[in-house]
């Protein structure tokens, strides 16, 4: 039994007899068990003798039963030991020196660790040998260091080296001898005079001094090294003053003299044009370096393009253009000519060639071009363009047409050049050649007489059944020739025919055609087109809206006739629609004549007798035209149609009142009151009385009115004003208080009451007013006025701004604001207010309406009215001031 502790810390045991088992067989068993190859197994035996061989019995190795062997696999790969490792290293070999290893010495007390090459430490054979012979003599040359080569063997190399050295020694000895021999026969100068020189020591100082100088002749041969320059002093320069500008000018004069001489040469032949000379210089193109290098690069590129792909026309064109840009027109021409040769079937190349060619050669070039490509329209057109007179041009074009009879552009060009007669003939031919071009047909029809034109159009229709333009032209033709009744029929037939052909009729395009017809003056055609096409593709319920929108669009575009036609058609369908009548009337009012408007309104009221607006419009138009009786008649008719309309009553009253018929007006109002008129009737009645000066009557009416309509603030206001006018201030105050009780939410009343009270009380009053109706523009405006009077400019501006933003419709505030800005603001703010006012288009306001509704101001723009109101405000204020004083 033997235990083996294996490397993976397990213990294996084998049942074997150490006296009979060899180490080899144990290893074999181990190999079977642990799969560690025998060569890698390394057993640590108790005897720890590493020099056993495998055939030894285990007992010989000190292994007894129950002893433990440690199996250890050496980390070092156990390759077979290389052969050279067993041999002796060469002398002085130090391991690791080859790879640059250096040792270290840390413990010099133990001994020198560094591998010193002079220490024969490798050779331990002699044991205590010190490495050198202690008894050797101190060598003169080597000192004690015999050891350096002491243990080296004397070999062939050394022998040879020694021989060489000996040869050198011999040679040196020989040379020395030779030199000595030579010196003996040829002594040196110093040696020759050596004996004389020896005697010199006996020379005295005087004798030394009396030796003559030989003189320095070498100086003569020496070159002068440098010359020195000295700056000239300023004083030298000062005396003759040289003016550099004068010098420059002088050169200019010389040049001009030269030029003069050239121009005035005696023979009269001028070589240089002195005036053109400098301009010529200026016009010379100076190309910068960068451009030049760019051009060079581009030239190279294009050259490669045209060389690799000579059949590529754009390459040639680009190359030619580059040369042209570079200013080398000749090179450009040459290039493009080669291009033409390479790509003769490309019209662009020919066109370019023509462009680059001399004006006198261009024709020849283009002629060549058309010879190469006879069916190129572009080339023919270019050729025609090159001709100067029309005859030649048309000749060229005709020639072109011989080659390309179906080119519309050529036909057109030729027709443009021809006179009317020729043009007609040409067009006849043209429509035969290109029957599918409407323009040619239409042009022909235009040139023909009425009868022939009809024929032409009929033929055109046969050729082009899907072309609405032919029908429209036909209609225009009929209209121009007075056959107005034919127009409608034609258009109708046309529309039907086109529908039959399956041509999708687009309303929009028809409308455009109608507008075009209108612009061309063919009103009837326009109307006919509208009549026949306006309904196409519109849903039953959408009709009214669409038509009105179309008409508006047309009106905006200025096509009044078209719009009128649309309305006319719409009104035939919607006879009783008030809104369309109104729109149509507005159109007439803005763009039509008075008569047409009148006629329209008449028609309108017959169809919609209940529409009081139409009646009133009619009456007003009459009145504005100055025809008061007619207006009166219309109003009477209106009254008959709508007896209970207060509007009509009031209109009638206004008419009478404005035309200074107060009695009639009063009568009308009385009637209206009897008929159960509203508060407005009462108010108007009171106004009439006020105007007439019937104070008592006025007061009576107001009282009665207030009894009926106690919450109508205007009546209250009038009452208060009537009292204050008569100086009954107390009365007025009481009334105002009452009025405010009745209508506490009326901003106007509050504003009036603020105005009425004395200055110190105004503030309290205005706070009251603001409490009651916080966002009422009238109150705000009144407060603003208060600030204005107190010269609190910023606050006043703020409040006025609030007022106009709250009620942009009320002109009074705008006027107030504008007046304020005139007084306190800058020009910018004034303009701003004006602009905003115009944008807001105010309609209401007591003073505003008084001015805007005045007959003489009926068509004034907002701006003018605003200014007038401002003036009125100023007047009123000064009047109030006067009253107070």
């Amino acid at each position: 039994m033997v235990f083996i502790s294996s490397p993976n810390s397990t213990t294996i045991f084998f049942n074997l007899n150490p006296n009979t088992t060899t180490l080899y067989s144990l290893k074999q068993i181990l190999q079977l068990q642990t799969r560690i190859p025998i060569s890698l197994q390394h057993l640590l035996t108790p005897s720890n003798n590493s020099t056993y061989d495998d055939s030894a019995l285990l007992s010989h190795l000190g292994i007894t039963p129950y002893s433990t062997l440690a199996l250890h696999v050496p980390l070092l790969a156990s390759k077979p030991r290389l052969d050279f490792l067993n041999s002796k290293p060469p002398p002085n070999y130090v391991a690791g020196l080859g790879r640059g290893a250096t040792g270290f010495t840390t413990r010099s007390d133990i001994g020198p660790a560094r591998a010193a090459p002079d220490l024969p430490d490798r050779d331990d054979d002699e044991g205590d040998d010190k490495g050198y012979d202690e008894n050797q003599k101190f060598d003169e040359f080597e000192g004690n260091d015999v050891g350096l080569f002491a243990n080296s063997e004397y070999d062939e190399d050394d022998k040879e080296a020694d021989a060489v050295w000996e040869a050198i020694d011999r040679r040196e000895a020989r040379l020395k001898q030779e030199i000595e021999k030579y010196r003996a026969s040829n002594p040196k100068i110093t040696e020759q005079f050596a004996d004389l020189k020896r005697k010199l020591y006996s020379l005295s100082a005087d004798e030394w001094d009396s030796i003559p100088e030989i003189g320095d002749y070498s100086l003569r041969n020496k070159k002068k090294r440098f010359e020195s320059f000295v700056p000239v002093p300023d004083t030298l320069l000062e005396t003759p003053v040289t003016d550099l500008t004068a010098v420059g000018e002088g050169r200019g004069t010389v040049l001009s003299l030269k030029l003069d001489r050239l121009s005035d040469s005696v023979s009269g032949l001028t070589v240089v044009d002195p005036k053109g000379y400098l301009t010529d210089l200026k016009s010379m193109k100076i190309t910068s370096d960068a451009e030049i290098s760019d051009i060079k690069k581009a030239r190279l590129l294009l050259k490669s393009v045209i060389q690799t792909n000579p059949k590529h026309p754009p390459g040639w064109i680009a190359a030619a253009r580059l040369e042209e840009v570079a200013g080398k027109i000749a090179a450009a021409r040459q290039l493009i000519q080669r291009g033409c040769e390479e790509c003769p079937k490309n019209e662009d190349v020919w066109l370019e060639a023509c462009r680059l060619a001399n004006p006198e050669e261009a024709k020849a070039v283009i002629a060549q071009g058309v010879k190469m490509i006879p069916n190129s329209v572009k080339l023919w057109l270019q050729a025609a363009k090159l001709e100067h007179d029309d005859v030649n041009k048309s000749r060229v074009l005709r020639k072109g047409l011989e080659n390309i009879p179906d080119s519309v552009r050529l036909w057109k060009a030729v027709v443009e050049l021809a006179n009317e007669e020729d043009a007609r003939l040409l067009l006849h031919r043209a429509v035969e050649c290109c029957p599918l071009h409407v323009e040619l047909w239409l042009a022909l029809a235009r040139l023909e007489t009425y009868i022939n034109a009809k024929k032409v159009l009929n033929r055109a229709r046969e050729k082009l059944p899907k072309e609405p333009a032919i029908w429209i032209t036909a209609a225009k033709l009929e209209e121009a020739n007075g056959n107005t009744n034919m127009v409608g029929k034609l258009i109708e037939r046309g529309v039907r025919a086109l529908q039959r052909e399956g041509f999708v009729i687009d309303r929009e395009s028809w409308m455009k055609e109608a507008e075009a017809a209108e612009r061309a003056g063919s009103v009837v055609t326009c109307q006919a087109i509208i009549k026949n096409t306006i309904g196409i593709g519109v849903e039953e319920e959408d009709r009214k809206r669409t038509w009105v929108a179309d008409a508006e669009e047309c009106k905006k575009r200025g096509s009044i006739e078209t719009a009128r036609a649309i309305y006319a058609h719409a009104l035939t369908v919607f006879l009783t629609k008030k809104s369309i009548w109104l729109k149509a009337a507005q159109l007439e009012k803005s763009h039509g004549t008075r008569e047409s408007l009148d006629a329209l309104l008449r028609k309108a009221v017959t169809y919609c007798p209940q529409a009081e607006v139409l009646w009133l419009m009619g009456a007003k138009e009459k009145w504005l035209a100055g025809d008061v009786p007619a207006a009166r008649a219309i109003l009477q008719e209106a009254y008959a149609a709508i007896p209970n309309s207060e509007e009509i009553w009031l209109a009638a009253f206004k008419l009478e009142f404005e035309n200074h018929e107060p009695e009639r007006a009063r009568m009308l109002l009385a009637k209206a009151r009897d008929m159960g008129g509203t508060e407005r009737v009462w108010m108007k009645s009171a106004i009439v009385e006020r105007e007439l000066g019937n104070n008592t009557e006025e007061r009576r009416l107001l009282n009665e009115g207030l009894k009926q309509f106690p919450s109508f603030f205007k009546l209250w206001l009038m009452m208060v004003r009537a009292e204050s006018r008569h100086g009954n201030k107390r009365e007025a105050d009481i009334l105002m208080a009452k009025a405010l009780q009745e209508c506490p939410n009326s901003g106007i009343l509050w504003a009036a009451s603020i105005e009425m009270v004395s200055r110190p009380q105004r503030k309290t009053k205005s706070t009251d007013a603001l409490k009651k109706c916080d966002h009422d523009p009238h109150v705000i405006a009144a407060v603003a006025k208060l600030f204005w009077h107190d010269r609190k400019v910023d606050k006043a501006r703020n409040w006025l701004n609030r007022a106009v933003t709250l009620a942009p419709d009320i002109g009074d505030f705008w006027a107030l604001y504008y007046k304020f800005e005139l007084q306190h603001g800058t020009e910018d703010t004034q303009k701003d207010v004006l602009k905003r006012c115009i944008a807001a288009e105010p309609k209401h306001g007591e003073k505003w309406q008084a001015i805007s509704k005045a007959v003489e101001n009926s068509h004034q723009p907002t701006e003018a009215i605003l200014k007038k109101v401002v003036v009125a405000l100023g007047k009123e204020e000064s009047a109030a001031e006067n009253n107070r004083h």
Partner: protein
Amino acid sequence: MDEVLASVAETIKNFAVIYLVDITEVPDFNTMYELYDPSTVMFFFRNKHIMIDLGTGNNNKINWALKDKQEFIDIVETVYRGARKGRGLVIAPKDYSTKYRY
């Protein structure tokens, strides 16, 4: 020390190889590297001896037995990192000087 070396050989195989040298079999470097201790660990990187400052005063080698595997791995790694950067002397992560013991 042998156990430590054998057990970490696999762990550090990606950056280091451990060679076991029997100085009786290969006596060539004994003088050069002063190899006379029972066990000596030296580090080489690309044939160049890498010194390591262990705090012991001898930067050339580890001439005592390390007990801790991780400690040894750390030292090898430090050597490897330093040598990669071209250092000839690296500083061990731990100070092994004896001054703290006395």
